[in-house]
């Protein structure tokens, strides 16, 4: 057996940001050996990004704070090293692909670090070709602007630009956190290829582990700045339900397998991939009886089928750059529905939602809200009925205090001050914003709180319909769950909820209806169970349903299953 040497070593490392009271990393002692693939798990704010930034010297050399202990990268103490040296050792991929692009074309982007390192032009040329091959992008893309690419392609360019330096270590900070499911799959395929073909040491922080379990040598759990577990994946995911209490959402197949394992229908050890589990399930199928699965309960519906709240009739929409975003969209939504609009990036789903909210006006066709044609109405008339929550809270906060922020919409609607005060109070209560925050500046709050202020600002306008764009992007499982439970509560109280999302697990858990948009057209519209079972149509639109829907296909003689709870029960 080849002995793998230590390439990364943390010795008693603690880190405290200047502006924070507590340490973000607390006495970290660990080492990573050459060629290892390490997955870093943990809820948001646990210290994952800080731990990763210690590896390329951004901590302590750029970010302001106090560091104790030392980090050795291939024997070099990061505290004493310059970035030019460290960037040759550690390639770092950030979560948001756009924020790391520094140049104007894919070619310039990949060449950038190599230019900084002073490599000869011929070598830069060869390495660009190699990196493009490694991330499976055609050479024609070299002349494109990085920000014109899809989410998955952008992240692949980001990876190409760091691996072109041939660093022995590749660090990825939630590289799939901000991209659609197809993009996620593309990026994880690339990481897998790099691992196989180049034998880099890979450290990756992620919230979703489905495709990583098979690649990982070790999984580290970090909580409150401390590494609390360091186990091989088979042991780490042995008890998936218990992981949920640590803010980790294990792969769906892992939860389902454990359920069948407890019923002695499949044998241990746990599978490390969906494919592995499906083949085990194939063998177990003859033994599975209907009584092994929980009674199928339909998700409660609060829909009033007699009242149409939104109708889009013959809608076409063209953007100023000439892009025809929608072609002949017809859609009806009833009061009290909880529905998801799904589709790849650029499919037209956000355009549909903005048309419903009156933010965009159709090029052709009619928008009818609660029986009234509002196609040419001013936004004020629509906003009191349809609230739109943007993905980035920073785009929708304009005022100096939370009080002013939440009052902003009702003021524009001409509501009297006494009523506004009541609405501010109620919206803060619903969203869980403490009254002591009333005069705080929203910009100084954390992203989670800013998101809550943005939601409260829309709720204060009293809309019947709430449209929310990508509520779970960049959130860990506990945070996403809070938002989704909250939306579910609003639906229960009679609100119509429309969610634009890539998160199929969320759609399967909460939504009753799903609309699939592809190239400006609605291509599927039905219950989530029906839509997720229309495998061929989904494949044609490059949408992959969640793992449970694929597992459910094997169990279809017992019914239709799309969420984990459909199979394992809600206990």
């Amino acid at each position, binding site marked *: 057996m080849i002995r793998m040497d230590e390439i990364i070593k943390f010795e008693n490392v603690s880190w405290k940001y200047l502006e924070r009271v507590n340490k973000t990393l607390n006495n970290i002692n660990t080492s990573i050996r050459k060629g290892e693939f390490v997955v870093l798990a943990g809820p948001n704010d646990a210290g994952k990004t800080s731990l990763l930034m210690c590896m390329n010297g951004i901590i302590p050399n750029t970010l302001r704070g106090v560091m104790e202990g030392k980090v050795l990268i291939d024997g070099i103490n990061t505290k004493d090293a*310059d970035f*030019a040296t460290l960037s040759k050792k550690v390639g770092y991929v950030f979560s948001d692909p756009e*924020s790391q692009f520094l140049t104007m074309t894919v*070619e310039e982007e990949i060449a950038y670090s190599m230019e900084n390192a002073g490599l000869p032009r011929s070598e830069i040329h060869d390495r660009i070709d190699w990196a493009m091959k490694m991330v499976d992008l055609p050479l024609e893309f070299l002349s494109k602007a990085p920000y014109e690419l899809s989410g998955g392609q952008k992240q692949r360019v980001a990876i190409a630009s760091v691996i072109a330096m041939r660093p022995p270590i590749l660090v990825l900070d939630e590289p799939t956190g901000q991209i659609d499911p197809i993009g996620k799959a593309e990026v994880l395929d690339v990481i897998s290829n790099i691992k196989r073909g180049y034998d880099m040491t890979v450290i990756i922080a992620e919230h979703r582990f489905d495709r990583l379990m098979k690649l990982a040598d070790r999984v580290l759990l970090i909580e409150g700045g401390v590494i609390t577990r360091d186990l091989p994946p088979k042991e780490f995911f042995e008890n998936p339900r218990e992981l949920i209490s640590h803010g980790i959402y294990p792969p769906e197949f892992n939860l389902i397998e454990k359920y069948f394992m407890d019923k002695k229908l499949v044998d241990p050890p746990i599978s490390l991939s969906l494919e592995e589990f499906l083949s085990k399930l194939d063998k177990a199928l003859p033994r599975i009886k209907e009584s092994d699965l929980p009674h199928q309960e339909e998700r409660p519906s609060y829909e009033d089928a007699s009242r149409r709240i939104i109708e889009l009739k013959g809608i076409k929409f063209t953007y100023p750059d000439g892009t025809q975003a929608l072609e002949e969209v017809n859609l009806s939504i009833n009061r009290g529905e909880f529905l998801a609009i799904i589709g790849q990036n650029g499919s037209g789903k956000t355009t549909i939602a903005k048309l419903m909210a009156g933010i965009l006006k159709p090029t052709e066709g009619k928008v009818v809200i609660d029986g009234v044609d509002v196609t040419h109405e001013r936004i004020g008339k629509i906003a009191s009925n349809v609230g739109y929550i943007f993905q980035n809270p920073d785009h929708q*906060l304009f005022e100096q205090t939370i009080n002013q922020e939440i009052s902003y919409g009702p003021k524009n609607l001409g509501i009297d001050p006494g009523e506004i005060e009541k609405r501010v109070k109620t919206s803060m209560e619903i969203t869980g914003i403490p009254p002591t925050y009333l005069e705080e500046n929203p910009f100084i709050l954390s992203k989670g709180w800013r998101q809550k202020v943005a939601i409260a600002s*829309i709720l204060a306008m009293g809309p019947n319909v709430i449209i929310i764009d990508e509520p779970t992007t960049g959130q860990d499982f506990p945070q996403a769950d809070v938002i989704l439970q909250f939306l579910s509560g609003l639906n229960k109280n009679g609100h119509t909820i429309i969610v634009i999302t890539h998160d199929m697990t969320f759609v399967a858990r909460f939504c009753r209806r799903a609309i699939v948009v592809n190239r400006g057209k609605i291509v599927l519209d039905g219950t989530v169970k029906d839509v997720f079972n229309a495998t061929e149509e989904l494949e044609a639109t490059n949408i992959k349903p969640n793992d449970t829907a694929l597992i459910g296909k094997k169990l279809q003689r017992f019914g239709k299953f799309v969420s984990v709870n459909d199979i394992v029960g809600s206990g």
Partner: protein
Amino acid sequence: MAKKMMRTLLGYIPANSPMQKLHPITKIAFLLLVSAYPLLVNTPGLNALGLVAMLILLQVSNVELSILKQYRYLIVSLIAVVIVAYTFAGGYAPGYTILYRLGPVIISLQNEIFAVVTAMKLVFAVFVIIFFLSTIREREIVQGLRFLKLPYSVCLVAGLSFRAIGVSLIDFFTIQEAQKARAFDLSTLPIMEKIKQYGMYVVPVFAVALRRAEDVSLALDARGFVMFGRKTVKTNRTDYILSEYKIKALDIAIIAILIALLVLIVMGDYYFGWFRITGSLTSFLI
């Protein structure tokens, strides 16, 4: 069928616009040379002609003229500020023709002429900038600067700044949409309220830009870029991508004409006083 459009710093132009055929250095030369014209020309009539020329160029370049609507408040407020400043705070010199006395304030014909002259200069200059930003892409600016063999760090900072402008413009439009979602209808407001409202956009646009700037600075460090500082190593940076553009005869001809016009203005003004407000070849225009 929809035309293929290309994003510029201020909007879009068709991919087949004649401006796409020009070398970035020609566009940069246009900005630098033509924006000097209104500085040197005082005759309002000539500056008005320059403004008309800009409109013709926008049309020829296939820029959607409706975009100019977006800048009407900027232009109106600019003219208003100039007129108010000259009218009420322009000062008085012996020989001025007094039009009206308002307590200690003297409103004179000369100050009103200066107001018109300055306003026309500024409006012409604004149109030159609108034309430039409406027809150039951020990467063309960087390519132009690199073509001039400016230090890499200067080109990088320029590129990042222009990219930040482009991204901030997208943020600005998203923030406008978010305000619409909060029942705020800009089109219903009187002009002064609209101008005030633009000030309100500054807070979120800057907040988002600052957060993004932090990300970019971390990305620069992570990619081994060192401009200065204690932890630096001497490495000769390779200039891998020099230029994908070639200077053509048309570019040389345009730059030569623009330089000739500038020389004509400087010489005409110096030797013959053609472009002064009074006693000039074009004084009849005022």
